[in-house]
């Protein structure tokens, strides 16, 4: 079965510092990988997907099939990036979310 692991429940960085939220997946096929974000008092929403290879709000994520990872990165964190981040995998209508990482960006 698919599994998505986010090893860090909490991550705290200072404004302007680089940030990396880790995500590892275990799946024998070729799932699509995603990052979802939930800002305070807002709904969970899609941040980015690996197939689009885009940068959203300065965040990027590269799928590394060898390491089965899909880490989310941003070179210079901003206070407004503070939120809950969920990594997710999707294959054949089976959507799996990780436990989430709460990112706090301190001034």
């Amino acid at each position, binding site marked *: 079965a698919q599994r998505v692991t986010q090893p860090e429940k909490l991550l705290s960085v200072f404004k302007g510092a680089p940030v990396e939220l880790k995500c590892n997946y275990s799946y024998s096929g070729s799932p699509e990988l*995603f990052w979802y974000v939930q800002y305070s008092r807002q709904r969970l929403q899609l941040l980015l997907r690996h197939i689009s290879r885009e940068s959203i709000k300065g965040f990027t994520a590269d799928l590394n099939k060898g390491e089965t990872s899909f880490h989310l990165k941003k070179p210079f964190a901003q206070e407004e990036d503070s939120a809950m981040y969920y990594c997710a995998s999707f294959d054949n209508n089976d959507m799996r*979310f990780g436990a989430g990482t709460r990112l706090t960006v301190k001034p």
Partner: protein
Amino acid sequence: GAGVSQSPSNKVTEKGKDVELRCDPISGHTALYWYRQRLGQGLEFLIYFQGNSAPDKSGLPSDRFSAERTGESVSTLTIQRTQQEDSAVYLCASSFPPGPQQFFGPGTRLTVL
């Protein structure tokens, strides 16, 4: 409406009582998903509806949980004989076409005393 809506936003109930949670998906979205989020844990898939097809109930944790959807509209998640471990935020999401780009509702926070 502009987005997925859920009601109630909060529900406190006593152990053993039945509860019904409602989800109104975005109009035209054929796929509807229910998830459960326990404190400190990730989103746990419960059930998936797609159009008039038989729902995927593989995530329902026990036979106390059931869900219905009328056509491509409202869905209700029913939990019978609630237990304290049912306390969680229940999230609904919809999409079109079915897939991972899902639009989430605000959730219903269920507390079982």
